[in-house]
């Protein structure tokens, strides 16, 4: 009991993920800066920001629903942490694992987005409301492709357990190559999920100030930012567990290192993506997702199904 509480709160739970999230926020920011030929922030900047925000007053608008206003950030952070328990990090399996946990993880990762919507909606400010509506519009655009490409590898592996998939693909690393298209789609969808350029439409600062987060300040904003950091790491871990299943089962320090390198690779791709493009308009984003990303995801699904029907039989069951 005590051990599992420590697992949840300290390692590899809340505190570990929070620290890792902030380290990767720094990585993201320094990459963004260096790609732009700037110097970038010092390594402690995310921590300093967090402490500074934590020391400030929470201002809750009079018009806002104070309970929902306070609940939303906590909900977002909690959901992102819980999702991490089902993602295999460096051990053979995740902290908790059961058949079909891939679906649960995707749902849990949707909760932060929904809580952004709730936060914006219950702030009742104009900018927040527009941001909230944009958040939910965008959710419908990237969620379906993400869902499809996360589940597609499961067909070949014969399991919808993330740990099972990871183990299967680490045993048959060549089959990873069939998922390249899925990897690309997952990166695009993840960029949308994390609301980063070119899909930072819900918080586009030159249009709607800070979108959903316009009214947030102090500790609540700090928790929101932490939630986004954790979501980034969890999202990157999810993508790397499924599409880059190398070094699974190494365990110990080496496994941990491989895990962090894999996340860093995903983060690097995300940062380059963010640096090289302009923000799209919401209708351009939805068009793009349904015209190109969703068909690509369906194609990936077909590839997995056909492979599963013809050559997959030999492997099925390997992951259980």
């Amino acid at each position, binding site marked *: 009991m005590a051990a599992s509480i420590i697992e949840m709160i300290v390692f590899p739970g809340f505190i570990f993920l929070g620290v890792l999230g902030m380290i990767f926020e720094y990585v993201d920011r320094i990459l963004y*800066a260096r790609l732009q*030929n700037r110097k970038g922030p010092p390594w402690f900047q995310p921590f300093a920001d967090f402490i500074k925000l934590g020391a400030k007053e929470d201002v809750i608008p009079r018009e806002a629903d104070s309970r929902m206003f306070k609940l939303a950030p906590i909900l977002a952070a909690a959901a992102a942490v819980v999702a991490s328990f089902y993602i295999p990090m460096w051990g053979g399996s995740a902290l908790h694992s059961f058949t079909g946990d891939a679906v649960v993880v995707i749902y849990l990762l949707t909760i932060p987005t929904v809580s952004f919507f709730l936060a914006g909606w219950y702030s009742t400010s104009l900018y927040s409301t527009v941001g909230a509506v944009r958040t939910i519009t965008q959710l419908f655009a990237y969620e379906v492709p993400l869902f499809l490409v996360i589940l597609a590898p499961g067909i070949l592996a014969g399991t919808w357990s993330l740990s099972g998939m990871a183990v299967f693909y680490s045993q048959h690393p060549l089959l990873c190559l069939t998922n390249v298209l899925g990897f690309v789609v997952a990166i695009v969808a993840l960029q949308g999920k994390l609301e980063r350029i070119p899909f930072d439409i819900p918080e586009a600062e030159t249009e709607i100030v800070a979108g959903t987060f316009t009214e947030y300040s102090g500790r609540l904003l700090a928790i929101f930012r932490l939630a986004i950091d954790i979501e980034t790491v969890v999202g990157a871990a999810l993508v790397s567990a499924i599409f880059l299943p190398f070094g699974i089962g190494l365990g110990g320090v080496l496994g941990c290192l491989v895990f962090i390198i894999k996340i860093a690779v995903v983060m690097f791709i995300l940062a380059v993506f963010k640096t*090289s493009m302009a923000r799209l308009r919401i209708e351009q984003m939805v068009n793009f997702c349904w015209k190109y990303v969703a068909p690509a995801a369906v194609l990936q699904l077909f590839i997995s199904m056909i492979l599963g029907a013809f050559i997959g039989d030999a492997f099925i069951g390997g992951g259980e």
Partner: protein
Amino acid sequence: MKKPGKMLAELFRNVTKPPATIQYPFRKLEIPGDSRGRIVFISENCIGCKICVRDCPAEAIYINKPGEEKIFEAVFNLDECIYCAQCVLSCPKDALSISPDIELAQISRASLRLVYPAKPKPPQPPKEKVDKPAEGNAAPAASA
């Protein structure tokens, strides 16, 4: 030909280059030598005509005569000065010049008041005959 990520090649080229930004108080950019910074007053040259006071757009300069002698001190209000160097241009006797000193921030208002004390003129008689050469950029005539 339209393609997404047009700037990618440029981005990767710049990752390895040293950053274009610098950390200011620790490293400083080179300031061109004739930048208009703090105005320097040379009391020995001043004849007290006060054209600079009249021409100053910001009313930031005052010329005072502290004693009975014909020597003058100058007071600059650095917070009012707009560093246009019109006074330097207007001065008929080269008593004012510009310096590239631009780091003039102070923590109190009082220290923004810069006083150049009056200095007695050097003993040898100044060469009154040599006028300032009438270059193209000569200041408007003092007596107009």
